[in-house]
């Protein structure tokens, strides 16, 4: 409350996480409802999400969100406590409620208003659902379980215990001891195993035999009998105690295994950090990236000194030592840049998860049955790309549903399953990530697209005959190619595909289409793994335009031809009494270029100290944030860092200032020698 703005960001980030988790759990719950088997763990976890959401939105004074999540909490509480049984109407209302929370959160983030009527409607619906399904009174039958344990159970845990007893399951108390510093690993392993054969109702910690040890008693319910459980845990360092349930005649009442000393871990107790994740604004990462860029330029200056030292002093100790340090610095800088890129990566499932919700909604709206299959969700991409990918991907998926997938009746006629499938797939490919959206719908009619292109006057009939299938499909990306009347003709694909292509190109990505009439279509997006955004100056030199990173640029000066002096056959510029070598950018890239006399030019001062350079250009056009795309290994041009697509300005080469400084330094030395 001290910093409302920061708190709000933190709050919104957590709401986003909660909404994502709720969606996932709702989907799992939905699957469970279909299968007639609801996992109590999922119900409890989703209850907790709603509970947290209610708490934090209440404290933020977001009354609508608090009320809505309160209603959801009520429903989940009733469900988990067995007072309400789940059905499709409840599931639909819950999905819609999560959607609204998502909308509310987005509106809040943008400072926009949100239609509150919709919230009132869903709240009324949730209330009706809670009331309608006859409530089952939760009976508090005194279970003959150790009072000491019963007193520690939450109401929910007690409910689960009773449910399990009612189902005739056997209840055990399983004791295990772990080293304090690593207990969660061992405990998680044990719990995961137990959950595969039953239900862990409660986890009760207590002090271990020594201060370094923690003891846990797990209240465990299973359909297995005593002998089987005894068998399963034989040889493990566990104490198994029967609490209630079936005992085989030859078994005993209490099945206690001989205790063996727990594996003592020799390492000392360490001060472990409590939380191992940090949320960072991506802009901060961009600014670190810029600093790394500047460091690289400083490093270029050092490299130059290394060369000079070598020339002047030969292979003496300082020259050799500095050269070694310089090499090391280069390696570390490269590492630093790579680590920075790693930090920006997030798994694509963060994006895929959002579509599950959308598809559910679209499928209701269009009356088409759609199943979304995702794979490769662990593939990582730059956070910024993930953000920018959401809209184009949404567009592609919407197209697939609107125009690709047929209505169930039509699908049935051609012998396809009633439910259409959309396959969302991600996989890495070298320095790129490929994302495919494949549907098993109607596909596109390539011939119809060709005719349309001819009719639109985009190409004449004769030349169009020579086009490859792929070339013809390219027409879809031409703005306005596909209009309403084209919908029936070419399966209506292409609505706004020009915009999609533009968006993808902006991220330095490419888009391809593969289609087969009657079988379906596949849209393939190829994206760079990272998008480090850098600030640049767009400059003109000769007939070309370049982008020059702003980092490391000292100042920009208007230069008149008479300002350029010649000293020892070299062109120099005198800046506040300091002589700085001049490099004409046009000549740098094309030494044969004829220099035209110009009335005014611009000088960009770059570098530091001894390696300062005045890069002479015709003019500075604008400042621009760009994404650098590497040219690939085959195109290693000194002084060029990569290329960038600026849309209206076309593709520009990005100047590598550090590279130019080092090449120029060499030239100057050579020329001077």
């Amino acid at each position, binding site marked *: 409350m001290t910093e409302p703005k920061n708190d709000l960001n933190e709050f919104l980030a957590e709401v986003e996480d909660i909404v994502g988790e709720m969606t996932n759990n709702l989907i799992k719950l939905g699957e469970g409802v279909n299968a007639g088997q609801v996992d109590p763990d999922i119900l409890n976890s989703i209850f907790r999400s709603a509970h947290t959401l209610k708490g934090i939105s209440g404290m933020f004074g977001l009354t609508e969100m608090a009320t809505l999540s309160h209603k959801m909490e009520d429903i989940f509480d009733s469900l988990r406590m067995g007072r309400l049984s789940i059905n499709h109407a409840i599931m639909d209302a819950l999905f819609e409620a999560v959607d609204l929370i998502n909308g509310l959160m987005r509106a809040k983030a943008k400072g926009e208003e949100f239609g509150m009527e919709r919230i009132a409607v869903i709240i009324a619906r949730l209330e009706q659902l809670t009331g309608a399904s006859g409530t089952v009174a939760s009976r508090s039958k005194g279970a003959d379980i150790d009072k000491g344990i019963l007193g520690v159970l939450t*109401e929910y845990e007690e409910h689960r215990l009773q449910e399990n007893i009612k189902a005739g399951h056997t209840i055990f108390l399983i004791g295990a001891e772990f080293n304090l510093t690593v207990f*969660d690993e061992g405990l998680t392993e044990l719990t995961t195993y137990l959950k595969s054969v039953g239900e862990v109702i409660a986890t009760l910690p207590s002090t271990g035999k020594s201060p370094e040890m923690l003891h846990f008693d797990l209240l465990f319910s299973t359909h297995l009998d005593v002998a089987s459980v005894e068998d399963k845990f034989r040889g493990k360092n566990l104490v198994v105690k029967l609490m209630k349930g079936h005992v085989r005649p030859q078994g005993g009442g209490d099945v206690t295994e001989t205790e063996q000393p727990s594996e003592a871990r020799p390492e000392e107790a360490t001060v472990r950090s409590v939380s191992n994740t940090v949320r960072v604004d991506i802009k901060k990462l961009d600014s670190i990236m810029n600093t790394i860029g500047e460091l690289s330029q400083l490093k270029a200056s050092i490299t130059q000194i290394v060369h000079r030292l070598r020339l002047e002093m030969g292979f003496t100790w300082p020259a050799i030592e500095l050269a070694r340090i310089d090499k090391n610095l280069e390696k570390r800088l490269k590492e630093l840049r790579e680590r920075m890129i790693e930090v920006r990566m997030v798994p694509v499932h963060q994006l895929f998860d959002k579509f599950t919700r959308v598809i559910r909604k679209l499928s209701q709206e269009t009356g088409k049955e759609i199943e979304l299959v995702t794979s490769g969700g662990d593939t990582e991409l730059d956070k910024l790309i993930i953000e920018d990918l959401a809209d184009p991907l949404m567009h592609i998926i919407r197209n697939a549903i609107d125009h690709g997938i047929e209505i169930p009746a039509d699908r049935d006629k051609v012998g396809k399953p009633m439910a259409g499938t959309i396959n969302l797939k991600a996989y890495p490919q070298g320095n790129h990530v490929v994302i495919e959206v494949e549907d098993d719908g109607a596909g596109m009619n390539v011939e119809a697209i060709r005719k349309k292109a001819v009719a639109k006057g985009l190409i004449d009939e004769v030349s169009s005959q020579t086009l490859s299938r792929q070339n013809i499909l390219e027409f879809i990306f031409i703005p306005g190619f596909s209009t309403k009347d084209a919908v029936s003709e070419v399966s209506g694909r292409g609505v706004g595909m020009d915009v999609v292509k533009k968006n993808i190109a902006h991220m330095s990505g490419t888009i391809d289409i593969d289609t087969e009439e009657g079988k379906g279509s596949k849209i393939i997006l190829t994206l760079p793994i990272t998008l480090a955004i850098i600030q640049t100056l767009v400059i003109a030199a000769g007939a070309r335009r370049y982008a020059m990173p702003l980092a490391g640029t000292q100042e920009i000066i208007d230069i008149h031809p008479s300002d350029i002096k010649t000293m020892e056959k070299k062109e120099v510029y005198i800046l506040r009494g300091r002589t700085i070598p001049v490099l004409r950018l046009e000549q740098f890239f094309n030494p044969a270029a004829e220099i035209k006399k110009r009335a005014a030019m611009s000088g960009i001062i770059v570098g530091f100290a001894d390696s300062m350079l005045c890069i002479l250009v015709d003019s500075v056009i604008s400042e621009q944030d760009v994404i650098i795309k590497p040219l690939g290994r085959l195109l290693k041009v000194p002084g060029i860092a990569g290329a960038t697509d600026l849309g209206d300005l076309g593709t520009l080469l990005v100047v590598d200032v550090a590279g130019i400084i080092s090449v120029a330094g060499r030239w100057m030395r050579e020329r001077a020698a």
Partner: protein
Amino acid sequence: MPFNVLVVDDSATTRAMIISAIEVLEDTRVVEANNGFDALRLLPLMPFDLIITDINMPDISGLELINFLKKNPEHKNIPLIILSTEKSEKDKERGLVLGASEYLVKPFDPEKLRMVVEKYLKTGKRQ
């Protein structure tokens, strides 16, 4: 030496709000745990003068944490405040039976929380 307060809650926003409510108190240092396991790990590392805990958490519940603390001679005198929902009367009752000093309901009033925390820190007997 400042008073150490341990805040156990699985919601980062909630922790941030608890902290902003009590950090204004003089000589108070707040340590965060984002679940019960973290709390168990933190306990041996420093002496705590007060613990504020949620009940419903993903690994162990607040009640289980309180039970652990009260049975441990080293921690049993640390005052405990439960900060949870109004959802279950039974949970509240059990928490107090297990030895919690207070039960506050979320969403909480920062002013009230600050007063309660101050009360326990002032009466705390730490040498």
